[in-house]
């Protein structure tokens, strides 16, 4: 366990935590459902990948690292699709996106 390995792992983990913080803040701050999906899909996926990559670097080349890589692949495949499914269901349900100059707060239905 070298020092360089520890530093790389720690910085990746901290970067992942910061990115996930951005994702959480985005879900809180963005104005409507469809803009919040952007925060939940891209930002959270990237944040979790950074965090797990940091753990993988910390772990070194063992079997646990292989399992971490599998988890990264599954999350990268599944997370955007789950958000797409929810956004698609919302659109079909009648939710419509907010846009500039629209005061309805995204609650305008067809």
């Amino acid at each position: 366990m070298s020092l360089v390995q520890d530093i790389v792992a720690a910085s990746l983990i901290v970067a992942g935590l910061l990115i996930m913080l951005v994702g959480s803040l985005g879900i809180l701050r963005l104005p409507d459902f469809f803009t919040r999906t952007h925060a939940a899909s891209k930002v959270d996926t990237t944040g979790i990948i950074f965090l797990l990559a940091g753990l993988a670097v910390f772990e070194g080349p063992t079997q646990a690292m292989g399992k971490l890589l599998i988890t990264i692949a599954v999350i990268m495949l599944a997370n955007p699709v789950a958000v797409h499914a929810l956004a698609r269901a919302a659109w079909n349900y009648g939710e419509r996106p907010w846009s500039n100059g629209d005061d309805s707060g995204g609650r305008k239905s067809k």
Partner: protein
Amino acid sequence: MTNPSESVIIVVVSRALARLIQLFGIYVIIHGHYSPGGGFQGGALLAAGVILLRMTEGYRESQTETSTAAAIPLASLGALIFAGTGLVTLAFGGYYMDYGAVPVPGVEEPIVRYYGILLVEFGIGLAVMTALVAIFDDMLGQAPGGDGEHAPAESTGAPPKI
């Protein structure tokens, strides 16, 4: 939940992940000695794969994966494997599920024990998976003998062209 999903993204990714989940379920059953898990957890994961396909493929298309008609008999078979393995050990004079008591020529006792546990875990996994699938189908109203056996599963839109 009986209609197929219309988004090609959801359908294809669900197929890919259903394979992965089911293989993971088998892994959990087989590696129950070394890592958390065992028959019940692996069976639940296997059932999760089937239920994912039930939701995204639609009820009828996913029948090729695990059919409703086969679920109950397979659950009985799993329970039979579970109980039967224990009874076999009784027949050789051991305690119930005392696998080491079964004399297999040329094989040492720990090995027999290992395969006995593997067989029991397999039985539990099969029973749990098929029982959960049967419960899910029953909640859909699609189980054999249920009200909705011939209910038309009308499609809400054009199916995805793959």
